[in-house]
């Protein structure tokens, strides 16, 4: 039974339980809701909650746990001799899953009958030819043990799903009975319901923590796996990045880090002056109509998806720069993908980020400080330069750090605009690549998931995560410390 139907059944049971609980409570009070401890809906909700929550929890746990159990059993069926050289148990298991899917599809098409797909004594060649006839992909890797394992896999999964459906529905029914049993006019239904709602609220709030834990765990396990295959000293110390899928790759992170920092630097050189001056002008000089026009217009830049900036870098900025600095112009630039191309696009993206953060911070400087400065005869610009900006400096530094972290983590602009070659060079007209761009290219290729060439992406992700996390924490610390001064 598909999971979606199971969910529908449990919800239907809950709805029935709600109505039953409500009626039962009203009956126990003789039809007069004033004799009840709580409002009638609470009795209904109590029953419905008891039906849904345990059943759904059980279902989720079961769905997560079942694949592990099945994999364990099926893996035990495959003898070591069936694993070819250069292959691994994981790959064979993937093949088993694919074969099982193929059998499923063939049964769904009616090309083979269910009994035939399950029949363990069926002739091997017979099954594969029938699968081929049904349009399912049959590779040379499907061998006798793989096919037997696939059949077993289907059988265990089917039984597992059947047992799960039965148990989940049973638990939901038990919940309904439990809820109905305790329903009478003196039962404190509201308190019970409110307590369970509170538990749900806490669970929802904890998802944020779970997400962080998930991120850290998924990075750590794969990073450790990577360092087992590839020495950490090479990863942090080598000056070349040259992955080759045949093995013998050099995976030094330094050229990537350099590309990341260089592109971010170009972006900040564009974004910080423009953003800062725009913020100063908007908060100190601009008339109301100018402000109410220019501020949202600049913020439109922040709402544009990064893929648009990526395309803009590749197809507009790149050719434009190439016509000036390219072979026809000064001859500095070889192709449209370069550090400066990606840096400019990223800078444009960061302008509103810097300007709106600094705008908030400048506005938070107390008016009394401005008035004092004017009273001493300072002009507006002198007030800004000598009073407001120094007072706002920690906040502005925080804003710039947040912008840096955004620039380091930006992916689509560099994937499209910066190029694919990892280089250690000072020339901004050369193509370089970044940590994020390499994560994408290493994980979207065809490489085997257990190879160091794919696993390196997790180590890169870990590097990226630690860098941005450090920057964010530091920036938030500075901003918060500064705010305390005037509150």
């Amino acid at each position, binding site marked *: 039974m598909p999971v979606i139907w199971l969910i529908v059944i449990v919800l239907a049971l809950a709805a029935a339980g709600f109505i039953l609980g409500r009626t039962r409570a009203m009956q126990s009070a003789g039809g007069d809701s004033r004799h009840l401890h709580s409002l009638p809906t609470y009795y209904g909700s109590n029953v419905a909650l008891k039906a849904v929550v345990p059943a759904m929890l059980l279902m989720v746990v079961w769905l997560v746990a079942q694949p592990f159990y099945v994999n364990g059993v099926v893996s035990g069926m495959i003898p070591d001799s069936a694993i070819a050289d250069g292959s691994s148990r994981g790959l064979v298991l993937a093949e088993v899953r694919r074969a099982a899917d193929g059998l499923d599809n063939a049964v769904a098409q009616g090309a083979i009958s269910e009994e035939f797909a399950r029949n363990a004594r069926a002739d091997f060649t017979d099954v594969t030819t029938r699968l081929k006839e049904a349009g399912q992909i049959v590779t040379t890797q499907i061998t006798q043990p793989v096919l037997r394992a696939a059949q077993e896999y289907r059988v265990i999964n089917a039984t597992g799903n059947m047992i799960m459906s039965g148990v989940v529905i049973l638990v939901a029914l038990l919940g309904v009975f439990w809820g109905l049993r305790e329903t009478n006019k003196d039962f404190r239904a509201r308190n019970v319901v409110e307590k369970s709602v509170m538990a749900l*609220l806490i669970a929802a709030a904890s998802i944020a923590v779970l997400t962080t834990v998930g991120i850290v765990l998924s990075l750590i396990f794969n990073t450790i796996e990577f360092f087992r295959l590839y020495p950490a000293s090479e990863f942090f110390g080598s000056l070349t990045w040259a992955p080759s899928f045949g093995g013998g790759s050099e995976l030094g992170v330094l050229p990537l880090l350099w590309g990341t920092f260089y592109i971010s630097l170009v972006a900040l050189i564009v974004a910080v002056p423009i953003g800062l001056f725009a913020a100063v002008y908007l908060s100190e000089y601009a008339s109301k109509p100018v402000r109410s026009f220019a501020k949202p217009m600049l913020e439109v830049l922040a709402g544009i998806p990064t893929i648009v900036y990526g395309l803009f870098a590749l197809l507009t900025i790149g050719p434009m720069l190439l016509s000036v600095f390219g072979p026809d112009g000064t001859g500095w630039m070889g192709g449209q993908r370069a550090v400066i191309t990606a840096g400019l696009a990223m800078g444009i993206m960061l302008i509103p980020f810097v300007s709106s953060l600094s705008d908030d911070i400048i506005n938070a400087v107390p008016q009394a400080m401005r008035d004092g400065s004017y009273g001493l005869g300072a002009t507006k610009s002198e007030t800004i330069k000598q009073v407001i900006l120094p007072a706002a400096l920690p906040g502005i530094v925080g804003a710039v750090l947040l912008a840096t972290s955004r620039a380091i983590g930006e992916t689509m602009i560099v994937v499209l605009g910066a190029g694919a070659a990892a280089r250690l060079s000072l020339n901004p007209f050369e193509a370089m690549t970044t940590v994020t761009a390499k994560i994408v290219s290493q994980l979207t290729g065809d490489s085997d998931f257990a190879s160091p060439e794919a696993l390196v992406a997790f180590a890169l992700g870990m590097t990226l995560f630690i860098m941005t996390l450090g920057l964010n924490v530091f920036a938030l610390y500075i901003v918060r410390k500064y705010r305390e001064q005037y509150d």
Partner: protein
Amino acid sequence: MTDASMDTPRPRRAKTSLVSEDARTKKRNAAEKRFQAYGIAAIATGLFFLAVLAFSIVRSGLPAFTTTVVDVNFTLTQEQFDEAEGQLFKTKAYSGYFITALQKKLEAENVQVAFDEAAIERIMGKIGGTLREYYTANPDQLGQEVAFKLNASSRVDGYFKGRVQRETLQDSRFLTLADLDLVDALAEAGIVHSAFDWGFITGADSGVDNPGGAGIGASVVGSFFMMLVVLFLSLPIGVAASIYLEEFAPQNRWTDMIEVNISNLAAVPSIVFGILGLAVFIQFMHLPQSAPLVGGLVLTLMTLPTIIISTRASLKAVPPSIRDAALGVGASKMQSVFHHVLPLAMPGILTGTIIGLAQALGETAPLLLIGMVGFVARGYPDGFISGFTDPNSAMPAQIYTWAARADQAFYEKAWGGIIILLIFLLTMNIIAIILRRRFERRW
């Protein structure tokens, strides 16, 4: 002593007047003007970039919505059909009939131009195969005049849009200069012309070698299913989390940790969420690869901090007097929140949710890692449930795939896709603004 000090001669000062500016004042005023000019220049630069961006999107994207079509009225008789089916090279026979018909038509229009089967094939693809397919599927159309609207090849399309130029064209097996003469003659006769390309809006990705047939429809559907997942998970979870943190949470270590986590998650690069999705949902939980369901789950985790932050702000904006009044007439704390505070905060929550969804809709990088790249969007899902589990792409990932392809004709499609994506984003943001304007309450 005081007398003596008073007698010391003062340093001579230049005569100043309030009416005339001295050099120092001039310098200070000039600095003031300069500073102001920097500010104006900064804002002008920002707006200039926005204008250039908008201009290049519209200029490069609009051609994606038109395509070059060949209009031919063609009649195939039953005898011709039987004869063609009896031959060894069936499609060749069909294209022979077509060329004769086209020649007749051009003679009637008094256009003198010579062409052969290869030229026709270069201009409008394998015409014989198309005709044969049509007539074997619709035998009842035999003997009647059928108006065929055939898409011209992407290079002819490029010639019409200025992408392919006469001066730079080199004869190849795809297009020759002589073909362009034929195209010009056909265009003059009104047979070849531009038309609105519905295929772009409703179609699916077509593969590397057919930019003309690529459409964004399938990935719009993929994005839609993903947004459904995001909406139905992130709204309830986000609201529940904010209610707890804003209304109930005691000051303790656990809630502190949650708060710190939320503000940090809001700044984690999106690609890290992609890694999370790959490792947890695909590697660990064995959910189907490239499925909008997985994409939706990843984007949900990404949008949650945004939604929680904006929901908390709108809960905070509801004045405490509302809560006090509810508690005063005997409501429990939970009732005061769910019956009074939450409904009053709803417009703000919905606005924040729509803005969070708009952000999620434009996100690309995590989708690439979980396999939702453009070329898997080969068709529409069969039904509602398979819409969540069948491999599909999403709009921004589709745009990326097109932008990364070598054929220049795909760039135009990418820009066109961006126009569609931006239309969706604009609509969502306008709805959010209207909601805010209409229901916002100042207490």
